[in-house]
């Protein structure tokens, strides 16, 4: 598990600064003309249940490997310049940051497509699990749209 800003694929307990992460990615190339970001945050309601806290667990090594594969494929298949993916684990309060994807490209179109694809692929292939604490107790979330 890495928290160093220089790594473009990270799973970490600590919160991240969206601004710092974007500024870091802007240094990847002077050819970047468009940046699309996706920020996932902890929401209070899920399927009508009030959530008081979230906990994320991951499969170390496999999760980092999958995020690395997503980044490499996004760069190759969508022709973007660079991408970073950061996902937090452990206890997360409502409203806190969970996941950040930054897609950098020469033009906006490819960064929109790459960013949307990357979050969908993360949810499909990356071994990370969410546990919600509600008034009824703790529930492991099975899959989310």
């Amino acid at each position, binding site marked *: 598990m890495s928290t160093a800003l220089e790594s473009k694929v990270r799973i970490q307990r600590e919160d991240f600064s969206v601004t710092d992460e974007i500024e870091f990615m802007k240094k990847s190339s002077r050819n970047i003309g468009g940046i699309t970001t996706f920020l996932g945050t902890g929401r209070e309601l899920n399927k009508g249940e009030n959530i008081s806290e979230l906990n994320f667990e991951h499969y170390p090594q496999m999760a980092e490997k999958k995020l690395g594969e997503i980044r490499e494929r996004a760069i190759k298949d969508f022709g973007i310049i660079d991408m970073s993916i950061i996902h937090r684990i452990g206890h997360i309060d409502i409203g806190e940051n969970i996941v950040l994807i930054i897609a950098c490209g020469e033009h906006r179109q490819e960064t929109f497509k790459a960013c949307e694809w990357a979050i969908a692929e993360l949810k499909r292939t990356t*071994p990370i699990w969410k546990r919600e604490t509600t008034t009824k107790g703790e529930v492991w979330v099975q899959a*989310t749209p």
Partner: protein
Amino acid sequence: MSIMITVKYFANLKQMAGKDEDQFDISEGTTLEQLSDLIRQSVPQLGDMVREKKVMISVNYDVVPLDTVVKDGDEIALLPPFSGGM
């Protein structure tokens, strides 16, 4: 000849198993489907979930089909549906 493998459990599967991982002494040439029978002996519910494909299995960090033959030193994990992202 037998090989020793480790099976890791995550999320709700860890709670079902009551442990993080199991060690199995298995014959060379054993498939993941055959391994699920051994898992069933240890934790019946988990073995059934593997057979019914309610969980995925990874070997060395890649999801693979149940007819995959297990090799010595492989890292195997039972993976419930993922729910990362937000």
